[in-house]
């Protein structure tokens, strides 16, 4: 019954999306207030129905209802409940339902909470959101029905890919999807504003919180995903430049550019057409990413269940929506009036440079990700991996970070180069000092990129707090604090990346129980190896006692886990976190003579990478709350003033 109810809810939601689109289109075309008045309630109902369908699928997974094909092929009755729950989206159909749900709920939120947008643009936006949703409903209902039954129902189910059996699965995909799909709101805003020809500062102020919200979640999702891959895959790396990772990075790059350009539009009423374009590009990148991940046309370390036929469907949707949005842009961009002018030396220019560099990185990542597809069409099988991406993204990202030092110190509209130099003096001096120290200490021992990375990270760290210089800290608005914290987060993250690639010590040995291994100041005493068992796995576990510099020994337990359904082995690395880095130990296979392979890394300050990501998201949250609170305060004050007059 639950599965049928879920399918019915989904069909009903799809019909409501169609109704929502029709009401908005007819209402706007004929300027009929009674039709437009119904758009918002319909959007809310649609959002509710998608949420119900999703909750019903979660219930099916929790109950291990094996008569549902999706549950049978992706879950197992013996699995711990957390993974039954999270397993809902650990597969193609479930994740697409999550996609549609986020889209529906985001549309409902726009219907309920958006107050700043002009009425007609608001309705056009909701119509746009319904139009995008419709395509994905069709995909779900015709090509990936999550509620399909299977006859006869198997007893146990095939189980979830064990790499996914990790608490990370409960947090990472939903957060990522909220951000990823949340960008659809910015896309719909752009469509709405183009249709009603109302691209201006007020529009940007209305769009900004939605962009910011999606961007915060996307940042958190990427950060969490990076840490998850780092400890789960057991390779000691935190970013693999894998197509699936690029699929989440590209929308983030576009959204980051959008976040900055929308601020220019909101504050200075400049960059109108460009901001609308970026809003279209950001969600287009989300869709391209979904296509890459879901069609399985690229080899990926994270490739789970893939199906090339579905790729065609998503490709068609991609063409329809991206093509349609770009056509609308081309048609209406002439109607977007020129924005306010600005001098060459100004905050606006700095933000244009920021956008330019982010777009260049985005373009290069996109080229690198799609290049294997292009060459395969000509009969060459090619893979583009970390060497390409490191070489192109590294230097440009460092340039971007340099702009980040100067940008916030530059004034809006017009500024003097000499004045900026004076304000940037302290960060510059710090950078020079670090160069001197590093050159003296580590010249020739670390690569040029990590070297520059550390220098620039420290310069940005100082530069990011420089806007607070000589300001009354208690009267500094919360959104300024948000910018400072987010930029500081970039510095912290960059510092972690540079430190990891410059100072990581790796050791690969085969050792017998009872032996001792020394590396990077750590002493590892290999005590014993023994079998252990969990809920649905068995493992070989090494017990080790590690200590540093004669300190108190700590026990760690790297494992090699075996899962029966589906039959898979995973490595569970042992991580020991210290304030100044992480010890990362992987247990390999048995070697001759009763020895075991061990791979040991000491990674100084590697945790800063994710701490930085968290700070970036926190900064975004502070900016969001700061802006919204200011809006409420202004409204409250004007109401008070009106009451006083009356």
């Amino acid at each position: 019954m639950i599965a049928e109810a879920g399918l019915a809810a989904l069909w009903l939601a799809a019909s409501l999306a169609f109704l929502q689109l029709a009401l908005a289109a007819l209402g706007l075309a004929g300027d009929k207030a009674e039709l437009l008045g119904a758009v918002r309630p319909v959007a809310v109902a649609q959002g509710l129905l998608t949420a119900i369908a999703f909750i019903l699928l979660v219930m099916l997974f929790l109950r291990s209802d094996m008569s549902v094909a999706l549950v049978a092929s992706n879950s197992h009755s013996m699995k711990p409940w957390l993974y039954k729950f999270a397993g809902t989206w650990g597969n193609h159909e479930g994740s697409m339902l999550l996609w549609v749900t986020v889209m529906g709920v985001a549309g409902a939120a726009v219907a309920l909470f958006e107050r700043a947008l002009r009425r007609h643009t608001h309705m056009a936006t909701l119509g746009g959101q319904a139009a995008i949703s419709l395509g994905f409903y069709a995909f779900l209902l015709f090509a990936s029905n999550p509620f399909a039954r299977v006859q006869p129902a198997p007893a146990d189910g095939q189980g979830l890919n064990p790499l996914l059996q990790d608490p990370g699965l409960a947090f990472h995909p939903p957060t990522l999807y909220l951000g990823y799909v949340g960008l659809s709101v910015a896309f719909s805003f752009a469509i709405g504003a183009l249709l009603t020809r109302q691209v201006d500062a007020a529009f940007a102020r209305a769009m900004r919180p939605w962009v910011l919200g999606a961007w915060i979640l996307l940042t958190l999702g990427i950060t969490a995903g990076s840490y998850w891959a780092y400890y789960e895959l057991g390779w000691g790396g935190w970013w693999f430049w894998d197509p699936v990772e690029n699929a989440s990075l590209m929308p983030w790059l576009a959204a980051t550019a959008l976040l900055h350009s929308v601020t220019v539009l909101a504050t200075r009423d400049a960059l109108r057409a460009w901001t609308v374009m970026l809003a279209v590009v950001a969600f287009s990148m989300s869709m391209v990413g979904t296509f890459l991940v879901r069609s399985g046309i690229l080899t990926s370390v994270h490739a789970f269940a893939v199906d090339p036929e579905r790729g065609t469907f998503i490709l068609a949707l991609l063409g329809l929506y991206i093509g349609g949005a770009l056509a609308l842009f081309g048609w209406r961009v002439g109607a977007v009036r020129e924005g306010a002018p600005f001098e060459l030396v100004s905050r606006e220019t700095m933000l244009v440079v920021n956008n330019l560099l982010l777009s260049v990185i985005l373009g290069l990542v996109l080229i690198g990700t799609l290049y294997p597809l292009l060459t395969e069409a000509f009969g060459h099988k090619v893979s583009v991996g970390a060497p390409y991406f490191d070489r192109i993204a590294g230097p440009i990202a460092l340039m971007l970070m340099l702009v980040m030092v100067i940008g916030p110190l530059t004034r809006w509209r017009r500024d003097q180069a000499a004045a900026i130099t004076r304000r940037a003096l302290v960060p510059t001096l710090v950078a020079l000092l670090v160069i001197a120290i590093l050159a003296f200490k580590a010249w020739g021992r670390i690569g040029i990129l990590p070297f520059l990375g550390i220098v620039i990270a420290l310069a940005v760290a100082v530069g990011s707090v420089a806007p607070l210089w000589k300001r009354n800290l208690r009267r500094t608005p919360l959104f300024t604090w948000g910018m400072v914290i987010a930029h500081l987060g970039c510095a912290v993250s960059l510092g972690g990346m540079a430190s990891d690639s410059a100072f990581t010590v790796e050791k690969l040995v085969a050792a017998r129980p009872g032996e001792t291994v020394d590396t990077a100041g750590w002493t590892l005493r290999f005590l014993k190896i023994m079998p252990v068992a969990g809920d649905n796995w068995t493992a070989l576990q090494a017990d080790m006692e590690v200590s540093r510099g004669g300190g108190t020994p700590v026990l760690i337990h790297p494992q090699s886990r075996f899962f029966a359904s589906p039959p898979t082995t995973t490595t569970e690395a042992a991580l020991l976190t210290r304030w100044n880095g992480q010890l990362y130990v992987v247990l390999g296979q048995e070697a001759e003579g009763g020895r075991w392979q061990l791979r040991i890394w000491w990674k100084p300050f590697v945790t800063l990478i994710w701490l930085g990501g968290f700070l970036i998201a926190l900064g975004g949250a502070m900016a969001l709350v700061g802006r919204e609170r200011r809006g409420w305060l202004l409204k409250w004050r004007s109401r008070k003033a009106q009451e006083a007059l009356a």
Partner: protein
Amino acid sequence: MKAKHQRLILALAALAALIGAGLLATSALRDEAAYFYAPADVKTKGVEPGKAIRLGGMVVKGSLKHAPDGVTIRFDVTDGKATVPATFKGIAPDLFREGSGVVGEGAFDRSGTFIATNLLAKHDERYMPRELEGMRYDEQSHKMKVDR
């Protein structure tokens, strides 16, 4: 400065950035894109030593040897038409075994041995490196079969 001039300067900067990025991408792709080779391609086309490639095929049964250090392995990779020797230092993937598919990332040394810096084996029962689609090892004849 007139607004028009500024727009021109910004547009030129954007154009320069675009061209620069394009050039950067082409040169980086020429150097860093790793082409996929099957052992037969290696024999017929030849690969210069040190060039980053991906080598894919099946691990020949009986060819897997463990070095005394316990962390280096040597094995032969075949596609049924040609066979090349390979070595790998590190922890091999759990599903790496004789008679099973493997894709190695790395380069050939001067002696013609493939030095893999990374091995990709079948991830789970459902995942197969895409490059190896259609290849399988025939248990009876101990030969590679290619269904294409």
